[in-house]
């Protein structure tokens, strides 16, 4: 039984269906990556699991509980954290305020969580009083991930976390994501850099025009000649 699963999801933004019955899921302490060509519905699948898209068919189940009818805000309260691809920080607010806003729903003392995030991303501690809008692209991504982790989520969803950052920063970001996985969080991400992402993935979902084409472990998918030829550029 998968911890968070979107099962047979079908739906779109009003016009033709973008998702045509695809299934995506992730377990705690695991990284699942959704890859596929442009327009495959990768981000849409993730948005559906977050509740930003109404499903015509299928359901979303978390920890055995059907959450299909919950709004995104309610799902956040249930323990799902989401890092959007763009506009994922409060640019006019300091790094520390960004993290505080991540913990907005928490009534308890969250200083310890903030310390853990500063340990995970030491640069953020140094820049805690600086507006997030003044940081570099890679640092902003760290703020964005840090903000999402402030709720102590059980599921972390990342929409193309490495879009627009340099390869060095990308490697470092993936290292941090591995550390987050080690703490027992379920991580679901959509990635353009399919090869690198599958490298660290426990599970990979290759989507094509809204349907599952291949589903296996990251290593198996990387070794599969058909996947390599069609999606990884040989």
């Amino acid at each position, binding site marked *: 039984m998968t911890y968070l699963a979107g099962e047979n999801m079908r739906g779109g933004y009003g016009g033709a269906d973008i998702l045509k019955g695809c299934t995506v899921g992730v377990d705690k302490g695991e990284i699942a990556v959704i890859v596929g060509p442009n327009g495959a519905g990768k981000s849409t699948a993730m948005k559906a699991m977050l509740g930003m898209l109404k499903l015509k068919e299928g359901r979303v189940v978390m920890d055995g509980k059907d959450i299909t009818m919950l709004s*995104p*805000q309610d799902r*956040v*309260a249930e323990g799902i954290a*989401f890092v*959007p691809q763009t*506009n*994922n*920080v*409060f*640019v*006019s*607010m300091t790094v520390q*305020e960004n993290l*505080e*806003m*991540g913990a*907005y*729903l928490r009534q308890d003392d969250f200083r310890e969580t903030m310390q853990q995030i500063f340990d995970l991303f030491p640069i953020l501690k140094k820049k805690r009083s600086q507006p997030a809008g003044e940081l570099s692209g890679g640092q902003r991504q760290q703020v964005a991930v840090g*903000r999402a982790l402030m*709720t102590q989520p059980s599921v972390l969803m990342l929409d193309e976390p490495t879009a627009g950052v340099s390869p060095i920063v990308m490697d470092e970001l993936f290292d941090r994501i591995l550390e987050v996985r080690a703490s027992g969080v379920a991580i679901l991400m959509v990635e353009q850099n399919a090869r690198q992402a599958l490298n660290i993935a426990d599970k990979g979902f290759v989507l094509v025009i809204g349907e599952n084409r291949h589903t296996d472990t990251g290593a198996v998918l990387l070794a599969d000649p058909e996947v390599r030829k069609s999606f990884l550029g040989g």
Partner: protein
Amino acid sequence: MVDLVPEFIDIINALVLLSNFVVVPALSYGSQLALGALGVTLVFGILRFANFAHGDMMAFGTMATILGTWWLQYLGISLGPLPTALLALPFGIAAAAALSIFTDQTVYKYYRAKKSAPVVFVIASVGVMFMLNGVVRFIIGTDDQNFADGERFIIRAQTFRELTGLNEGLAIKLSQGLTIAIAVILVILLFWFLQRTRTGKAMRAFSDNEDLALLSGIDPNRVVLVTWIIAAALATIAGTLYGLDKSFKPFTYFQLLLPIFAAAIVGGIGQPLGAIVGGYVVAFSEVMITYAYKKFLKYLLPESWEPQGLVQLLSTDYKFAISFIILVVVLLVRPTGIFKGRVL
């Protein structure tokens, strides 16, 4: 050979004259505009539209305060030297806040649910403006209402002359002193609220990035509610101080909308600090350009150079033209304003 250098005492006289007729009135008027502009800028930052009903919200809140003042006066309650209106302010603020929330629930909420374009909100606010306009005139009438009581002056011109032995007097009205003091206190409170409290930070987050604020679990309805209450409180206080300083007339408050908008936009709309700076920029421009400098120059220039005319750049009848010109120039040259606000 004429003596070109003015005497020291003449310079002092000239400066006192300028303080009396330009600096003190402009500081007080600027504080009133700043408080008004803060409300406009907050509503713009959170609800993302320029609220044309703000001037009439000021009129409504002030009207409620005046009614409260009259009632307190009838009961024989006063604040001694301070105007009774200060005691009636909480009543005025509550009335204005209730009205703001009522219009939000009945008008703006509908357009928020429909995700209407900002221009639709602006036009809706023009409708609200006309309604409030009518309501205020219906209740209190269209005439001037003078509701100031207590001491008139902190220092009178005559007293100042006697104290200093100067030719010129510096009068500071109690209403002017109160306006500046209250504005300073309110601005400090507002910034403390926005920078330090959980709700204030949530408002800034919501203004910065609405989608991310929703993802962080910030309740949009609460943010909107708090914004209306603060805007209504600021509008009522600004309006009451303006009314104490000059007098209350519904039409004047409707006209105040222009300098208030000019102040908010000059400073950078959506930026609270900009609203304050903008308020003083507009007020000082208005007062300095419409002041007749004849007497001021008489002190500083040799006798033979004494100006013939009033040396007034623009008649006071045209004071609103100044706000309008500032508004147009800023929108053309630097649409984001001094502090890089949003572009309208």
